[in-house]
């Protein structure tokens, strides 16, 4: 069965970042030009090049408070990444005004469970280092090295039977679908920073092909554990922080002295909905996802830390998103790129913007959020999309932070206060370590235009 | 008088002979003509009819499935072979199997068999002959022997003649065909009877044993049981 493509709108936002849970604290933090980057608190990270991260304050986020009482026990088998997704979903569902099994176990769900899908991007979740090390600490030989034989015989018994289920990437979607009873198509995309964007793209396809009317869509990740930080340092993506550096000025996207990124924990779940579904239940869409594009770079280093100088895959994804939104570069009023502050990645962003937008590249306001909320891995795209949607709803651009007078040659990306702006369409694009690129065109939702 | 009588007698004799000869000729001609007809009821299905093709496939699948099914114990189970299914199989799958087993040349002009299932006997017809069979289970063998009702064309043939004929007919080893992987089953002709072992070994060494054959109007019912692999 083929039908005309169904239009897909955003009806709920559930970002979680260093500023707190939900869109309100995130928006306030972004408008104020705040930054949540500070030294990592859960362990002494001072031996890493970058001991900083954008963390959620413990008071701000307790996943137990965001799940139904009957589900609290299950929070014990949630890695941090899972908890972030579960929290984000709770906020998104509330924001969209949906009744689900979680909000009212006895109520009639707004959308039938079989028509509700779920697509959540996830990263490689590292085992809790303390839990694993404790279990392993008895399986050592005389030299103090790991003894596989003791481990197999008795050591592994120290791990809880459900240990593996804390770390499977699809457990984000698993918990969210159980909590909210989403029985439609569900998927877990694991493409680093591109994961959320690809998840949103997949939700759009699923809604469009008629297999669901609503999808909880986005991604979440927390790489702040030692293993996560180590891997990012190995990949050469983190800023080297020296004593006395101002944590809130370490990430400097598109600036000439940019020196790397800082990790954040976070993510977001959005409620994506077929336009006719939103209409029939009488809710005003926050924004329309008008276009989507994805592509893959073939990288000279194979693993996608760098892209080739002549790579045009990001441009292709953007062009494809513009085409599917039926608009041209002139229709875009602001851009939210990855903006990681990693020089080689910023160069990719810059090249793509300049290629696609030509002379307008230097005038189009960029929205940057990594200096504020850190680089949130698989959650990056969802946070960016939530932020862009809120910009459209409020017709306002958030502040950009950085040293006063910092230059961002050829791009409008330097520090600036929050300001009102006429925004019709925003381009959100994300490149990833690994070479996957996504681009989304978000459009202010205009009811008259549809009716007319 | 006596001449007359003798003449009459000769004439009578001659006419009797003539009548006899004519009758014999008529019989022969009739018989010959009868052999030219297809045996009664020989109306084979078309092997290119998709319905027949599918029926044969389903029949084979169901038969193989029933024989290979893993069963709780050794209690008997039965499978019903309907005439139309048997025929579809004979027409579509048998030539395919014969070809598969490397018999393409020998059976390039395979006569198309058709089965007619009547109470107590199965009549196999080709476009020229009809041979009736009945079966008996004797000492762990299924013995298939001619029954009354065979004919050449439509000319009835005594079953004794069929026994002689059977020496020259080589029936494909249907058991092997349907249950590939089995071994140890030796087929043979003994005293004009086809002898088929009633036990067939499956690929995983289980044994399917035929316990009873019931031949009714339009269907054959096989009663079987599945035995575990011989220990060891």
């Amino acid at each position, binding site marked *: 069965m083929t039908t005309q493509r169904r239009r897909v709108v955003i009806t709920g936002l559930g970002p979680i970042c260093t500023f707190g849970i939900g869109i309100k604290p995130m928006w306030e933090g972004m408008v104020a030009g705040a930054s949540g980057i500070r030294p990592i608190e859960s362990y*002494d990270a001072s*031996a890493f090049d970058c001991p900083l991260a954008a963390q959620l304050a413990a008071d701000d986020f307790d996943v137990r408070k965001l799940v139904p009482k009957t589900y609290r026990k299950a929070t014990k088998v949630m890695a941090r990444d899972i908890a972030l997704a579960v929290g984000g979903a709770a906020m998104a569902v509330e924001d969209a005004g949906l009744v689900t099994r979680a909000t009212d176990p006895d109520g009639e769900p707004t959308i039938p469970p079989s028509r509700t899908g*779920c697509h959540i991007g996830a990263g*490689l979740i590292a085992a809790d*280092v*303390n839990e*694993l090390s*404790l279990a*392993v600490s008895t399986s050592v030989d005389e030299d*103090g090295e*790991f003894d*596989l*034989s003791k*481990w*197999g015989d008795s050591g*592994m018994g120290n791990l809880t*039977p459900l*240990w*593996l289920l804390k770390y499977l*990437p*699809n*457990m984000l*979607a*698993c918990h969210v679908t159980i909590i909210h*009873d989403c*029985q*439609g*198509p*569900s*998927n*877990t*995309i*694991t493409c*680093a920073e*591109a994961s959320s964007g690809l998840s949103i793209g997949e939700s759009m*396809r699923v809604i*469009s*092909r008629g297999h669901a009317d609503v999808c909880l869509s986005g991604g979440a990740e927390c790489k702040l554990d*030692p293993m996560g930080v180590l891997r990012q340092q190995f990949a050469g993506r983190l800023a080297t922080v020296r004593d006395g550096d101002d944590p809130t000025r370490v990430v400097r996207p598109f600036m000439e002295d940019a020196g790397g990124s800082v990790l954040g924990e976070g993510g977001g779940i959005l409620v994506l909905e077929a336009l006719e579904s939103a209409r029939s239940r009488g809710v005003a869409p926050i924004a329309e996802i008008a276009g989507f594009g*994805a*592509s*893959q770079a*073939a990288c000279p280093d*194979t*693993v996608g830390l760098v892209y080739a100088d002549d790579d045009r895959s990001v441009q*292709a994804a953007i062009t494809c998103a513009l085409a599917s939104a039926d608009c041209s570069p002139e229709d875009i009023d602001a851009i939210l790129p990855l903006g990681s502050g990693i020089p080689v990645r910023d160069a990719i962003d810059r090249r793509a913007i300049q290629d696609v937008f030509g002379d307008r590249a230097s005038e189009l306001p960029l929205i940057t959020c990594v200096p504020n909320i850190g680089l949130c891995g698989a959650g990056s795209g969802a946070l960016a999309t939530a932020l862009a949607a809120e910009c459209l709803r409020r017709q306002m651009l958030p502040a950009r932070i950085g040293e006063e007078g910092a230059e961002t040659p050829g791009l409008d990306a330097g520090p600036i206060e929050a300001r009102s702006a006429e925004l019709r369409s925003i381009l959100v694009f994300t490149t*990833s*370590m690994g*070479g*996957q690129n996504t681009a989304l065109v978000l459009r202010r939702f205009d009811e008259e235009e549809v009716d007319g | 008088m006596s001449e007359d009588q003798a003449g009459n007698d000769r004439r009578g004799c001659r006419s009797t002979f003539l009548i006899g000869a004519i009758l014999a000729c008529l019989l022969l001609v009739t018989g010959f003509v009868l052999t030219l007809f297809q045996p009664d009821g020989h109306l084979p299905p078309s092997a290119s009819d998709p*319905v027949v093709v599918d029926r044969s*496939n*389903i029949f084979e*699948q169901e038969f193989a*499935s029933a024989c*290979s*099914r*893993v069963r709780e114990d050794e209690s008997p189970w039965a499978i019903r072979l309907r005439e139309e299914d048997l025929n579809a199989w004979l027409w579509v799958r048998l030539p395919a199997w014969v070809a598969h087993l490397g018999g393409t040349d020998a059976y390039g002009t395979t006569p198309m068999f058709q089965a007619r299932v009547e109470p107590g006997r199965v009549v196999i017809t080709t476009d020229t002959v009809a041979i009736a069979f009945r079966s008996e289970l004797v000492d762990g063998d299924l013995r298939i022997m001619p029954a009354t009702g065979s004919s050449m064309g439509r000319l009835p043939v005594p079953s004794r003649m069929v026994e002689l004929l059977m020496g020259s007919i080589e029936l494909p080893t249907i058991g092997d065909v349907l249950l590939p992987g089995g071994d140890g089953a030796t087929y043979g002709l003994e005293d004009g009877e086809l002898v088929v072992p009633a036990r067939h070994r499956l*690929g995983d060494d*289980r044994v399917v044993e035929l316990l009873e054959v019931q031949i009714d109007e339009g269907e054959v019912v096989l009663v079987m049981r599945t035995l575990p692999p011989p220990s060891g």
Partner: protein
Amino acid sequence: MSESPRVVLTGIGWVTPLGCDIDSVWKKLVSGASGMAPITRFDARTFPTSFAAEVKDYDVAEYLRDPSLHQHAGLNSQFALGAASQAWRRAGLDRFEQLDRSRVGLYLGAGEGVLDTENYMRANLRGWDPEARCIDGVRWAENALECMHAQKEIEQEPNMPLAHLAREFEVNGPAYNCLTACAASTQAIGEAFDIIRRGEADVMISGGAHTMIHPLGVTGFNRLTALSTHKGDPAEASRPFDRTRDGFVMGEGSGIVVIESLEHAAARGATPLAEIIGYGSSCDAFRITDIQPDGRGAAAAMEMALDQAGIDPGRLAENGRPPIDYISAHGTGTQENDSIETRAVRRVFGDLAPSIPMSSIKSMMGHLIAAAGAVELITCVMAIQQGELPPTRNLHHPDPELDLDYVPNESRKAPVDTCLSNNFGFGGQNDTLIVTRFKG
């Protein structure tokens, strides 16, 4: 209303515990061979499960244009490269010079890479502070930075097989990796199918690659009691649908398919091996450890796929045959999966269910986790091409609850036009694909 393009399979390739090329592995499958043996990748003698189905004698370099591009590739990426190269060549894309590489996408259901267990554990043990009962961050980091390898760590990211394939085949279309446990590669191929139907790409390289045969992988599944702990011949450990089944056996490897729009295949003169006509995906939304006992989720995926394929599961096809000729079962060999899968098939096909042969090749090559679905879909393509159904090995004890035709122990010649392939993942994802003989 515009007609969605038809989508055909033009290339298949696999790297499996039974071998690394299509034909020889197929022969082993229909002869009921087993790929199980004691684990050789690490000393697993004291583990509750000490056997697995490992890929043997595999050298990725044989498949590559320039092996140096992939010198640090993890085992999962190596498997993916070998399988994809076979598929790419089988599809004739290596000889097709006019290929528009921006219209060639990737959708894998590849697993994460293999942990560097030795060095990881070293860092953990040296960083461990027994008094505080937690790690000392500084000591951990110093040791980890010293003993662990950057490339090995980067290669563990689950999107690395994508990066390797993109590099090898120089393709730039949309690229995704999904990881929905054991359903991943079925879901990947299903979504790739949808991407082509929507015209977002002409060709997709899709499938999966995975290995979890490493100490913490085996540990994780042993703790979940999902693995067979059979004592005796490992070849008899994986016993799907048998009453004595006691868990799955880990396999590893990769299955990759090249799928493309019929129009694209026809224009370049490629021969379709089969056509994909249905894809369904659902989620149990039940419990993190259990499957919906009534098989509702699995049934929903099958029904969605059948609906898309225009097949009515409750009625014989027009030709009088069952609506599906063969079901490639998920059939892991755990008590729960096999019962519920049987229930789900009954739920969908009703009284016709027992007439549809359904087997599990996991009885022979183990469970390839994320890669299982793609390998099993390729098995369906081969069944269509060869007219033969692979058996379920080690099925000797009937389970009174399980009453379908599981093609026990020996393969069966049968006409096969349409196959349905099921995969269900830990976490509740259910995915179904339907392929059929290509008819112009």
